[in-house]
């Protein structure tokens, strides 16, 4: 769970890195089975982080402070 804006920025940077890794794998990997298996981990983590970002951004800072 993202607790503050610092963690939000860190998560956004992490998402970008994972996306770059997935894109790089797509370029470098020639074996379809290897690609599907390897990229699935990165894509799953991107999904998890995107959900955390959505949850954080869904709440106003004032609401978060009052919670």
């Amino acid at each position, binding site marked *: 769970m993202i607790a503050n804006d*610092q*963690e939000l*920025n*860190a*998560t956004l*940077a*992490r998402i970008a*890195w994972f996306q*770059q*890794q997935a894109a*790089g*794998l797509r370029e*470098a*990997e020639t*074996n379809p*089975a*290897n690609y599907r*298996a*390897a990229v*699935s*981990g*990165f894509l*799953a*983590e991107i999904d998890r982080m995107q959900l955390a970002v959505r949850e954080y951004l869904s709440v106003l800072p004032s609401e978060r402070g009052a919670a």
Partner: protein
Amino acid sequence: MTLPAFNSEGNLPPGVYRATLAETLTRFGHGSIQRQAVADRLSRIYELAASTEQVARFVVFGSFVTTKEEPNDVDVVLLMEDAFDVSRVSGEAALVFRHMEAEARFGASIFWTRRSGALGGEQAMMGYWQVRRDGGIRGIVEIVPEVT
């Protein structure tokens, strides 16, 4: 390399520290029942990955290599040799390379790629896993074979 002491945050200092599985389990595998269970999972994952004879590098990161009393799971990143073909791996070992199934079966978050797929090269790719989810940096452990 001797594994360093934890810092004041309960993490290893930044760096990639090489240790055998036995050394890693000795240092991190004791304490709560949960920690011991996670250590057992790590041992099994290592054994299964090693059975492919295609592991170039095996790195453990995340809360298992910290002072956290009850780590939820074990986080692993594997670099496989470029000759590795996952379709030739069968049985329980194959689950290591399927992220969601590894999570369900081993309680582990496992990432992997072949050496040629490492973003920015091997060292950069391995070093990245020191970055915590909050953006901070903490040390990680590369498990290396016993010297015979």
